[in-house]
C-alpha cells in the first residue's frame, strides 16, 4: 500500500512547516521502534503502536495490544478509516486526507501533546518550601489569635455583660446554668471551695462589679451571722476593721474550705498578746507543739455558790462538784455488786458516758439514767419497795416519814424494839386513839433515826456532800454542779477520737475521787500503770503544731474558733458597740461545740 504522510511541525513563533514523505509497504507500521515505517520518536508511543493496512473494503487501522489509539475521540482497537477521520496515536494525531494523485491513502501526522521540559515539570511537581504549604505561618498566627480572643475573651465577656445581676435568692437556687450560659467558667482561676459549689457557676454572685475586688457585702448577703473575734469595745485593736472577708477567706484554691489556717496569722497577735490586749488575761501561744501554755480548765471551785475558776493544770485544780464518785471502784475489773445480778457486774466507761449525736461531746450523766439501777435509795429492809425520790431532799425526808407512819398504823413491823401496837398482826380491829398516838410516836422517832442515820443522811452522803443543819435531821444535800466542759476556749471532738481507747487519755481507772480533773495526761496508748497527771503533754503526745513532721499537724483553728460564738456580728455595724450583757462566758452551757 502506498500512503502519503504529511508531518506537521508547528514552530514556536506560530508558523507551520510540512515535511511530506511517501511510504510504500504492505502494512504501514506506526511506532517508536526503528523498524517502523512511520517512526514516532516519543516514549509514550509503543515500539509498534498501530498498523495501517488496506484490506477488502477499505483501509483499516489496527491498534497493538495495550496501545492508546482513538478514532474520532473514541478508543478503538480496529477501525476502517475514511477521509476526515482523526486518529489519536498516543500523543500524535493522524488525520485522514483526501489522497493526492498517485497515492492510495494520505494522512497528516502531528505531535499534538509534546513532552514538557523535564526540569520544569520536576520542579512543578516537587515542593521543597515548607512555607508554601497550607496557610503559612501568618495565616495560622492570625487565625489562632482570633480564635482564642473570641472564645476565651469575648465570649465570657459578652456572657457577663448580658446577664442580670445576681441577688441572694438567685444564688440560693443553686441550679446549674450549663456550659453555654456559663462561659465565664473559662476564666475560673481555680476550683471553687466545696460549700460554695452549689452556686459556683454564678460568678457574678460574688464578683458583683468588674475590676473591683470582691466586697464584703457579697459575703454578708449569706453569712450575716459571722461573729467578731473579740469584744470589740474592750479590744478595738482586734476588730479587724481594716480587713475584708477575703483577706482571710481566699476562694478558688480547690474544694477545701476557704478558711485561713495559718498559725502565723494567729501568732502575729498571740505571740505577744500582752502588747495588743493586756486586759485579755490570755497567755501567749504560737505553736501547739512547741509553744502553747498549760491547759487551764474551768472547774467548779464552790458548788454552793456555783463558782467557776480557770486554773492551770500545773496548780492541780480540783473539781468541787459536790459529788463523790470513785471511778476506780466502779471500774473494778472484778466487777461491782448489783441488786439484779447474782454475780458482780463489770462496768466500763460507755455504761455511763454516752456520746451525743454528732459525737463531739457526751450526754450529761444523770442519776435516773446511769445510777438508779444499782443505787436504789432504799432505807428500810422491811419495806424494800419504799425508795427516796432523787434530787429533792425535802421530799425524800417526807417519804421516810410517810413510810414509817404507814407501817406503824398498819402494824406487822417486825422488830423486837418496836412497841406491841406496831408489831401486831395487820388487818385486825381498828386502832384506838391511844394506840394510834403510840404508833405515830414510834413512827416519828423511827423516821428521825433513819433520816439522821446510815440509811438517810448516810445514803445521800455516799454520793453527795451534805451540809449539816442545826439538828441531826435538818441536814441538806449540796446540789451537784458539774462543769460540762473543762476546756471552754477550745473545742475537743470526741467523735474524731472514737478509735482511741478512753483510758489512753483519761485516768479514770486510778481515780478515787470525783474531784480529780480527768483531762488527758497519760502517755498515749500506754498501759494504765504509766499514767501521768493531767497535762497538755497528754495531747502533745500525738498533736504537734502546724508544721509538725511526725505528729498530727494541728493549727490554732483545729481547736479554737476565730469567729467566737457569742460575739456580735462582725460585718454588720462592725464599729457599733456591743449589746450590754452579751454572753461571753460559756462554761455552763458548754458554748457551742461546733461552729
Amino acid at each position, binding site marked *: 500500500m502506498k500512503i502519503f504522510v504529511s508531518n506537521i511541525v508547528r514552530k514556536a513563533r506560530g508558523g507551520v512547516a510540512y515535511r511530506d514523505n511517501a511510504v510504500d509497504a504492505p502494512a504501514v507500521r506506526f511506532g*517508536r*521502534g*526503528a523498524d517502523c515505517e512511520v517512526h514516532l*520518536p516519543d*516514549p509514550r508511543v*509503543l*515500539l509498534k503502536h498501530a498498523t495501517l493496512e488496506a484490506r477488502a473494503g477499505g483501509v483499516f487501522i489496527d491498534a497493538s495490544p*495495550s496501545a492508546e489509539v482513538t478514532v474520532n475521540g473514541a478508543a478503538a482497537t480496529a477501525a476502517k478509516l475514511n477521509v476526515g477521520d482523526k486518529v489519536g496515536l498516543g500523543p500524535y494525531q493522524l488525520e485522514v486526507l483526501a489522497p493526492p494523485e498517485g497515492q492510495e491513502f494520505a494522512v497528516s501526522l502531528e505531535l499534538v501533546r509534546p513532552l514538557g521540559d*523535564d*526540569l520544569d*515539570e*520536576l*520542579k512543578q*511537581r*516537587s*515542593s*521543597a*518550601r*515548607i*512555607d508554601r*504549604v*497550607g496557610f503559612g*505561618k501568618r495565616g*495560622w*498566627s*492570625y487565625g*489562632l*489569635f*482570633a*480564635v*482564642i*480572643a473570641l472564645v*476565651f*475573651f469575648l465570649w*465570657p*465577656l459578652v456572657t457577663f455583660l448580658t446577664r442580670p445581676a445576681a441577688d441572694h435568692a438567685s444564688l440560693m437556687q443553686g441550679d446549674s446554668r450549663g456550659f453555654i450560659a456559663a462561659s*465565664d*467558667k*473559662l*476564666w*475560673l*482561676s*481555680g*476550683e471553687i471551695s466545696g460549700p460554695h459549689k452549689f452556686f459556683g457557676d454564678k*460568678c457574678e454572685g460574688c*464578683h458583683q462589679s*468588674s*475590676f473591683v475586688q*470582691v466586697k464584703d457585702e457579697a459575703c454578708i448577703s449569706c453569712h450575716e451571722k459571722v461573729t467578731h473575734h473579740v469584744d470589740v469595745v474592750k479590744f478595738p485593736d482586734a476588730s479587724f476593721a481594716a480587713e475584708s472577708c477575703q*483577706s*482571710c477567706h*481566699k476562694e478558688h*484554691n*480547690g474544694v477545701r474550705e*476557704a478558711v*485561713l*489556717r*495559718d498559725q*502565723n*496569722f494567729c501568732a502575729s497577735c498571740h505571740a505577744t498578746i500582752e502588747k495588743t490586749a493586756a486586759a485579755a488575761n490570755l497567755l501567749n501561744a504560737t505553736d501547739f507543739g512547741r509553744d502553747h501554755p498549760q491547759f487551764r480548765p474551768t472547774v467548779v471551785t464552790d458548788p454552793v455558790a456555783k463558782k467557776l475558776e480557770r486554773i492551770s493544770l500545773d496548780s492541780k485544780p480540783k473539781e468541787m462538784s459536790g459529788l463523790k464518785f470513785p471511778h476506780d471502784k466502779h471500774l473494778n475489773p472484778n466487777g461491782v455488786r448489783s441488786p439484779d445480778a447474782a454475780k458482780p457486774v463489770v462496768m466500763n466507761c460507755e455504761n455511763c458516758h454516752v456520746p451525743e449525736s454528732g459525737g463531739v461531746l457526751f450526754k450529761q450523766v444523770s442519776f435516773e439514767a446511769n445510777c438508779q439501777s444499782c443505787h436504789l435509795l432504799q432505807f428500810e429492809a422491811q419495806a424494800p419497795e419504799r425508795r427516796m425520790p432523787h434530787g429533792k431532799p425535802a421530799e425524800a425526808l417526807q417519804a421516810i416519814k410517810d413510810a414509817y407512819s404507814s407501817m406503824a398504823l398498819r402494824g406487822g413491823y417486825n422488830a423486837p424494839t418496836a412497841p406491841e401496837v406496831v408489831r401486831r398482826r395487820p388487818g385486825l380491829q381498828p386502832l384506838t386513839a391511844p394506840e394510834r398516838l403510840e404508833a405515830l410516836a414510834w413512827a416519828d422517832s423511827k423516821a428521825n433515826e433513819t433520816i439522821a442515820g446510815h440509811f438517810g443522811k448516810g445514803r445521800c452522803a455516799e454520793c453527795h456532800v451534805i451540809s449539816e443543819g442545826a439538828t441531826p435531821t435538818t441536814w441538806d444535800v449540796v446540789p451537784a454542779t458539774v462543769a460540762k466542759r473543762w476546756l471552754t476556749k477550745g473545742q475537743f471532738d470526741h467523735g474524731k477520737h472514737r478509735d482511741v481507747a478512753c483510758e489512753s487519755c483519761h485516768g479514770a481507772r486510778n481515780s478515787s475521787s470525783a474531784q480529780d480533773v480527768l483531762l488527758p495526761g497519760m502517755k498515749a496508748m500506754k498501759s494504765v500503770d504509766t499514767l501521768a497527771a493531767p497535762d497538755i503533754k497528754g495531747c502533745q503526745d500525738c498533736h504537734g503544731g502546724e508544721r509538725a513532721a511526725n505528729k498530727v499537724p494541728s493549727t490554732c483553728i483545729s481547736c479554737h474558733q476565730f469567729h467566737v460564738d457569742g460575739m456580735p456580728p462582725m460585718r454588720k455595724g462592725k464599729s457599733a458597740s456591743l449589746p450590754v450583757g452579751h454572753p461571753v462566758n460559756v462554761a455552763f452551757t458548754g458554748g457551742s461545740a461546733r461552729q
Partner: protein
Amino acid sequence: MLVYRNFRYFKWAALLVLASVIAYWLHQPFAGVPNGGTWLGYVLGTIGAGIIFWLTYLGIRKRRYGIHREGAGKDKRKDGIKLEDWVSAHIYFGLSLIIVATLHTGFQFGWNLHTLAYALMIIVIVSGIFGVYAYIRYPQLMTENRRGLTLNNMLAQVADLDKEMRGITMSMGENINAAVLRAAQETRVGGSFGRMLAGQDASCPTTAARVLVEQVAHQPHDDEAALRRLLSLLVRKEELLRRARRDVQFSALMQIWLFVHVPLSFGLLAALTAHIVSVFFYW
C-alpha cells in the same frame, strides 16, 4: 548564639530563675496556698508577662535589618544591641520562663483560660528548644549532604538524566520504557508537610524503575550494554533524589518548628492578654 558574649544572657536569665526559686521557697503565702494572686504571684506574673511581650518583639526586631548600623557612630549605645544579642537573650529568657511562669501558677492547673495560656507558652518554648537544636544540628548535615550542590543543581541533574534515559529506552521493551517514563514524569521531591519531613519516598517511581531494570538485567538480553548504561543512570538518579529529599527534609525541619512557634506565640499573646484582663475583671 548560645555562647554569645561569654554566656552573658544565660547568666542574667539564671539569676532571674534563681531569685524566683528562692523567693518562692521563702514566701509564706497567706492562707497557705501558693497562687498567682499572692504578692509574689503578682510579681512573678508581671515579670513573666513582660518577658513574653518582649520576646515576641524579636519577631519585629529581626526584620528591621541594619538598625544598629543606622546609629553607628552617632550613638554608641544603639550600636551595642545587635540582632545576636536579641537572639541570645530570646533563647535564655525564653527558657527562664519555664521556671518563672510555673512558679507564678503556684502549681494550680485546670481546664481554663489560665492554664491554656500556660500550656501555649510551654509548647512555644519547647518548639523553640527544638529550633535551637535544629539551627545547631542541621546546617552541618545539610552541607555534608549537598556536597557543593544546591537543590536546584540536583534537580537539574535529575532532569538531564531523565532526558538521557529516554534516549536509551526509546528502543527498549514496553515495560522498561513505561517504567522509565513514569520515573521521569511522576518522581517528585518533597510535596506535602509529611513528604517533606519524611525525607524519602517509599513509592518512588525511580526506585521502581531501577528495580525493574535490575530484574531485566539479570536475564540474557540482546542489548546489555544499553541496559547497563540505563541501570547506572537510574542508580545515579536515585542517589541524587535521596540527597535532594534529605535536603528538603533538613530545610523543612529547620522551618517546621516555626510553624508551631510563631502561630502559638500569637495564640499565647491573645490568651495572655485575656488572662490578665480576666483575673482583674473577676478580681
